[in-house]
């Protein structure tokens, strides 16, 4: 496995290839001619975006530290053994806020953000489609129906990883922050209490089903994640489409990290149940290193899609509210519908922001663009060659 990145931008910088387009151009990760053009096109001085992003990162991480201090009742409930994890989550908060700010500073994403929220709070949405948002969140974020349209196996594997990771985060994050505490008057057996921020939420018997589930939640998560991640790893080595253009740091490392985390987590349980703690120290360190690495990697590699995916809901809602008002835009030449009117107008705005002087072309469907270009070529360029 690669070393944990020293500084935020490390993983993508070391990539042999660069992600261009305005966002990359504005955060200084770009190399080659792309950066200048994209930065110019974005109309943004990269340094100011970086400064804004760093500021957002600092604010969010300070807020998280405050929440940790207060939520753990001034560190009374804070488990110092979990300190590295807590520190990593602070880095995670910084990284996510930083990358998020850079991301939404680019014209396309910035407009999508305003349009998405605008649609949510629009009168049409409240009046005509109040249930659209919850439905879209369930389809696109929860059950990820679109993945099923790509392949059922990928959908199933992704659902396992997704719900496994959600379960794991719901357990670990509050634990490492000292928000959850489990106390018992009697050592084991009945009388266990679960507290959040010091308030009792639940009392249970550690020997019954609920107790078992509470204490093995992370093992269950690991059992879900391992087959999912293993399938994707197998696919990355076998599927010729997936192999095309795949990069080790971007595509393989996150899967390996998930597998190492889950396997070491299960082995920790195995060691304490059956080996009287044999190898526990070593496993605990390996587990911690892989978790800390993954948390820090999240904002800068493949896992950033977790943060970006909600944009799909914003985009769908924006298009949906446009359709509610029958604002469908038809190709100027063949009259095939292109998309909603507000969508086309928004795209043209993005193209203008980027100084792409052909935003009027967006009013024609792709086929008409090709046909018109073909006719112009044959009649103007090769006219002597009929």
């Amino acid at each position, binding site marked *: 496995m690669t070393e944990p990145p020293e500084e935020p931008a490390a993983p993508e910088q070391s990539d*042999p*290839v*660069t992600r*261009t*387009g305005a966002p990359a151009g504005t955060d200084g990760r770009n*190399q*080659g*001619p792309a950066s200048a*053009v*994209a930065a110019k*096109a974005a109309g943004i001085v990269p340094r100011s975006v970086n400064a804004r992003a760093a500021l957002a990162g600092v604010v969010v991480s300070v807020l998280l530290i405050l929440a940790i201090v207060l939520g753990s009742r001034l560190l009374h409930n804070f488990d110092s053994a979990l300190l590295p994890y807590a520190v990593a989550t602070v880095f995670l908060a910084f990284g996510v806020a930083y990358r998020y700010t850079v*991301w939404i500073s*680019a014209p*396309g*994403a910035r*407009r*999508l953000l305003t349009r998405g929220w605008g649609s949510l709070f629009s009168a049409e949405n409240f009046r005509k489609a109040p249930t659209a948002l919850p439905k879209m969140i369930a389809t*696109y974020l929860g059950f990820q129906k*679109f*993945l099923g*349209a*790509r392949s059922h196996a990928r959908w199933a594997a992704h659902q396992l990883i997704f719900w496994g990771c959600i379960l794991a985060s719901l357990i670990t994050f509050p634990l490492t922050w000292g928000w959850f505490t489990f106390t018992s008057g009697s050592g084991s057996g009945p009388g266990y209490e679960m507290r959040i921020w010091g308030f009792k939420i639940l009392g249970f018997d550690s020997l019954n089903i609920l107790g078992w589930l509470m204490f093995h939640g992370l093992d269950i998560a690991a059992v879900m994640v391992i087959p999912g991640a293993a399938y994707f790893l197998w696919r990355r080595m076998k599927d*010729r*489409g997936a*192999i*095309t*253009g795949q990069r080790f740091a971007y595509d393989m490392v996150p899967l390996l990290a998930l597998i190492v985390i889950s396997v070491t987590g299960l082995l920790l349980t195995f060691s304490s149940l059956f080996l009287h703690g044999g190898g526990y120290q070593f496993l605990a360190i390996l587990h911690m290193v892989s978790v800390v690495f993954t948390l820090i990697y999240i904002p800068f590699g493949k896992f950033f*899609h977790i943060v*970006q*995916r909600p*944009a*799909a809901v914003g*985009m769908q809602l924006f298009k949906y509210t446009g359709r509610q008002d029958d604002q469908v835009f038809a190709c100027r030449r063949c009259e095939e519908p*292109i998309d909603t009117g507000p969508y*086309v107008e928004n*795209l043209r705005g*993005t193209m203008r922001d*980027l100084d*792409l*002087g*052909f*935003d*009027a*072309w967006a*009013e024609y469907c*792709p*086929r*008409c*663009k*090709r046909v*018109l*270009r*073909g*006719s*112009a*070529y*044959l009649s103007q*360029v*090769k006219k*002597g060659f009929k």
Partner: protein
Amino acid sequence: MMGRTIFIDPGRCIGCQACVSACRECDSHRGKSMIHLDYTDEGSSVASLPTVCMHCEDPVAPCAEVCPADAILVTADGVVQQADTTRCIGCANCVNACPFGVPKIDLQAKLQMKCNLCYDRTAYGLAPMCATVCPTGALFYGTLEELQAERPGVQVADTFVFGESEVRTGVAMVVPADRVQWPVPGGLPVVEINGKDVRR
């Protein structure tokens, strides 16, 4: 100057669809063709035109620039890749912003797909599928020198005019010898846009 790339000569295209079939064999989008073969004036002319991604260089890949999800990667060798499956949100911005009408979109799968210049082949020095099967050489893969060695006197253009903008591309088109580097018209002899006459 251009390295190995695709040279398109629509004047040679006979509309046989061989490239379309071959494109389906490319690993990066197995089973689906990313080539558009259009008959520009069906019914009155047999003229046809194959369209592959032009791998725009300046402005750098407009499709990638308008993408709100940073999904389109431009590799160091200038190849504009199809959308990253984890990032693409299926918004179709790239589809509608591409001046050449290249990307395709699967609205169910929320996924854009486009020609990758057969990255699985060209990255290893092989010609793209389409160019290997084209019987007339309308799609040629190689360097400009190799093209000119086969077709003495031929010239190419890698610049297209779209409205006020010129787009320089990584893939080039064959032009008559007396039209050296003549920017190729991007089409759209538009009569009006939003009710305004835009003819010069």
